[in-house]
């Protein structure tokens, strides 16, 4: 059973004529890394919204760990929490991910929503603060941070849930060299730990080092190409 599977999925934004995603079939195995490439506007973010259950295919289906994900399925709060606990999503714009009064609360938000005990929430929050080198920002308001700091906080907030699958939308954009190296290293460690990674990126080195599979998004059609370990779809 694959971790994620899209079968002949098409998606058109309401009110638009052209589908952004057209008859896409894709299979992602647990513990592998998929790199998504493509020009601006080719539908990378839209694909991620589908994978996160924020939008739903018009035709075709999306299966996560063997379960077909539909709007109705995610209406159930418990199913929704379980699904989102397993998938972490780093938005392209970290601003929309930061809505708490302090960085600490921001990171603790996810674990609290999941109903983890207070001590566990606190432990994870402190670990994440340390791991991402943002301990000194704990009591700061997230919206007063710099762009790179915001991205670290957003990633820490996602990782506090310890997702099995991490989806990153242009994670390297807007980072300085130090932060890029840090992120590169962090993602390699995650992959070694057996997490599934899905990322939209223009970073060649990152794709070469981590990706098992590369999906190239094109308008109007999409093509699959494989690197390293080939996969049949």
């Amino acid at each position, binding site marked *: 059973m694959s971790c994620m599977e899209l079968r002949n999925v098409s998606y058109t934004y309401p009110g638009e004529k052209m589908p952004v995603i057209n008859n896409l079939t894709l299979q992602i195995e647990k513990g592998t890394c998929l790199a998504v490439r493509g020009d601006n506007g080719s539908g990378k973010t839209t694909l991620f*919204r589908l994978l*996160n259950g*924020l939008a739903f295919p018009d035709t075709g289906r999306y299966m996560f760990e063997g379960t077909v994900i539909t709007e109705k399925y995610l209406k159930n*709060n418990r199913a*929704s*929490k379980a699904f*989102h*606990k397993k*998938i*972490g*999503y780093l*938005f392209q*714009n970290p*601003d*929309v*991910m*930061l*809505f*708490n*009064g*302090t960085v600490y*609360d921001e990171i603790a*938000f*996810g674990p*609290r*929503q*999941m*109903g983890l005990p207070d001590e566990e929430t606190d432990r994870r929050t402190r670990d994440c603060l340390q791991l991402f080198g943002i301990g000194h920002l704990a*009591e700061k*308001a997230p*919206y*007063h941070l710099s762009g790179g700091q915001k991205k670290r906080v957003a990633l820490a*907030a*996602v990782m506090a*849930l310890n997702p099995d699958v991490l989806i990153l939308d242009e994670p390297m954009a807007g980072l300085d060299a130090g932060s890029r190296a840090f992120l590169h290293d962090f993602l390699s460690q995650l992959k070694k730990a057996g997490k599934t990674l899905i990322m939209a990126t223009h970073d060649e080195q990152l794709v070469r080092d981590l990706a098992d599979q590369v999906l190239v998004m094109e308008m109007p059609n999409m093509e699959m190409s494989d690197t390293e370990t080939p996969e049949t779809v």
Partner: protein
Amino acid sequence: MLPVWMENTDSYVPPGGGGTFAVKTIRSISAAVGKLQFQQGRESKPFLPAAARLLLLLALILLLSLSRHLLVLLACTALAMMALAALPPDRILSVWKSALAAALLAFLVLLPAMLLRPAGRGNNLIIIWKIFISVQMVSIFNHTTQWNRITSALRRLHVPGVFIFTIDISLKYIVLLGRLINDLLTSYLLRAVGKNKQKYTSVGGVMGVVFLRGTEMNRQMYEAMVCRGFTDDYEGL
């Protein structure tokens, strides 16, 4: 290849005047946004923890509005004056401004009653005085307490998470949108050299963009919350 005009330098002599409208708008917005940010970072040494001060504030306002004794009114006034005296001058001024505005508004509202029923004048004046003092106290609290301290104070007083959350998000939006307006107007100003007959249209455009960006961000923020386990049932902060 670059178009020819781009390879050359324009000799441009700006016509006089113009531009002040945008400059003024930007200045006032920057000032407002700056004030918010200043409040965020400010941590004056509090004589009481924020939660206690918030309780005190609520108690004083309640006392002030319910009590009929002149003595209570005078005591509250004295207290407010003392707290006010501890602030730097520019803050005293801004506290007084908002308090005076509120008192003036109350005066205008009560004016017909005072004219028609002279016997109640004394009471009405006391109401205006009470409003003046209450607004002054709220404003002092506002000036001496960081926003995130206020939200954590509310939390300690067991105010439901959703309310605190709404406050937090609104604040974040004020800052972000304020900054966005500021950036848009600044870039407008940098490009709008000289006179501009369309200045009101431009500002309309800026507001339109801010509105659209606001709604889009709103949607995305909701999605970001869902992705981290939010299911409309708020699990305490």
